[in-house]
């Protein structure tokens, strides 16, 4: 029982990291109906920028907001330069462009920063706290807590502000929105900027635990996909809940399901994706949408 509880608690801890990146994926989807294959790499790159700032003497609490601003700007620039020319292209084109972006950013990071894993500072202490006999560190709890805060902020933005409404409108009904005076193209840029900033948060949460190196987010993004798909790809709440569930499931499946071992953890995430897409494609919190012809 004790060990089972520990597996669950550790799974929640890992799930927090998946949730934080899934939030960025959900934001992009809300902005343009697309999943950004480069989200993880952009998050990693932003974290490297933060590290550069810190290495140059800036305190963590100054580097953090500065990185968010840079990440936001970077997201906007990428949308304007790379995505806008292919905005109306079919899904395949956009998928390929984001894949190309992922490859490019990963290669640039490797070239600029090298491949040796590095530590990254965290405001949370590494000491542990006892939850019903299972142990988790303040860092792990911090990841979940910050993801929760980001979730609330995103929810407030999307559901409670005019800007959020405009963002969602621009994504679902671009032509009608234009008629209403919404600058659709800039809404998309805003979406990308926000997603990039959220991704930067995710990277800075994950780096102290996963160690910062160019390939840090390469497989995390698949777990994040699983989280977003499970939770409902439009729902920020779904992203967080999905992330936690994926984290726990991966741990439990690896530990207790015969035939699945620790070496097939990512395959478990894949199985989750397939199972959700076949059984309940809209995920836990997503809403079914009608396709009009």
């Amino acid at each position, binding site marked *: 029982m004790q060990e089972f509880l520990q597996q669950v608690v550790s799974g929640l801890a890992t799930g927090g990291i998946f949730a934080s990146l899934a939030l960025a994926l959900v934001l992009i989807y809300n902005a343009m109906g697309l999943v950004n294959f480069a989200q993880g790499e952009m998050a990693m790159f932003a974290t490297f920028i933060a590290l550069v700032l810190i290495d140059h003497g800036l305190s963590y609490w100054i580097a953090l907001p500065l990185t968010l601003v840079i990440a936001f700007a970077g997201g906007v620039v990428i949308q304007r330069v790379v995505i806008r*020319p*292919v905005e109306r292209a079919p*899904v395949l084109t956009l998928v390929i462009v984001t894949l190309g972006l*992922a490859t*490019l950013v990963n290669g640039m990071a490797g070239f600029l920063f090298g491949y040796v894993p590095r530590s990254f500072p965290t405001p949370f202490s590494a000491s542990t706290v006892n939850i019903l006999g299972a142990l988790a560190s303040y860092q792990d709890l911090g990841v979940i807590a910050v993801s929760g805060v980001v979730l609330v902020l995103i929810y407030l933005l999307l559901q409670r502000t005019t800007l959020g409404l405009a963002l969602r409108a621009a994504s679902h009904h671009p032509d009608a929105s234009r008629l209403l005076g919404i600058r659709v193209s800039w809404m998309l840029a805003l979406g990308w900027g926000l997603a990039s900033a959220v991704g930067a948060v995710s990277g800075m949460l994950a780096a102290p635990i996963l160690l910062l190196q160019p390939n840090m987010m390469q497989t995390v993004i698949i777990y994040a996909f699983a989280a977003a798909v499970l939770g409902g790809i439009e729902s920020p709440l779904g992203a967080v809940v999905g992330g936690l569930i994926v984290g726990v499931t991966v741990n439990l499946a690896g530990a207790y399901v015969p035939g699945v071992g620790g070496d097939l953890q990512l395959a478990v995430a*894949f199985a989750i994706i397939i199972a959700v897409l076949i059984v309940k494609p809209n995920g836990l919190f997503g809403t079914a949408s009608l396709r009009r012809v």
Partner: protein
Amino acid sequence: MRRLQQSPARYALLVVALILFVGLPTVVTSFQSAEWTQVLIFAVAIMGLNILVGYSGQISLGHGAFMALGAYTTAILVHRYNVDYLATIPIAGLLTGIVGFFLGIPALRLSALYLALATFALAVITPSLIKRPEQLTGGVRGIEILPPQPPDFANSAFTAVTGGPAMTSDQWLYYVCLVIALVLFWLAWNLVRRRPGRALRAIRDGEVAAAAFGVNIAGYKTLAFGISAFYAGIAGSLYGLTIGFVSPDTFPVALSIQILVGAVIGGLASVPGPVLGGIVTFWLPIVSNQFVGSQDWIPAQVASVFKNAGPAVSYGALLILIMIFAPRGLFGLIVSAYTWLQRRVRGAAERGTGHAPPDPQTV
């Protein structure tokens, strides 16, 4: 004969290309033949992906997994059961094709985006899936395939033409791959020209309308998956034979991305596109890693960026640029250039008669 007169350029080009490919090993080194063999293998895999992505409009980012299946089928049959290596090639293709067909069934339920996600995840877990059944796949130790020696008839023919040393295994494998590639390309060309190709394109361009016309959507889409996997399986089998070794890390996610890049850069929904794609896919890392560094006229800083940033940056940048500026790939660019030229040359004459120049895209 009349067809030759109507569009001499295209068919003449084809004949020339054919002569080049057939004659290649007689004029270059054995090693260079081996390089072009890899180009052919990629072209076959890319053709397969093209049928799925370009013609039926379904995205797959996981074709490396199909190649792995084909390669391991050949490796296991040859290494463990002493099956003749040539016989394993169609077996690998058929097996992979059947698996692909059945995978196409759940794929029907996935929208384009989700299909991309799911196949991408499949590509990433492929190495770990291969490692699992260790008794069968040899796990991380991999399986070695001894290089097949050329049969006597091929050796005599080759030495008669070149007047040189005996045919090497690499040169023989080149011809094996060339024959298979020609057959498969001819098959694909027929497929896209006839009803299946039209049905696939109808589905790609407007599924609902195609259904309204009575096209069996599910049937054709799963068929496309199966055929696409068949091609990838054959390519994988040849891959294993020419490399002489299969192991989990021979099929990383980068391979699936490479094939997709090749399909897109070469030109989707075209038959010659995959050949161009194969050339780019194979030569790009070599050019960025080796060629650029060896050229004296390129400043050292620029060259070292190319070498150290690796193929990743070149691939990524190329992919983005092509999608923005030349979404129909290199073949599309060539066709556009040809059309533009044609219009310039014939435009003056046609302006009088009011006839538009023939559309070269009628393949």
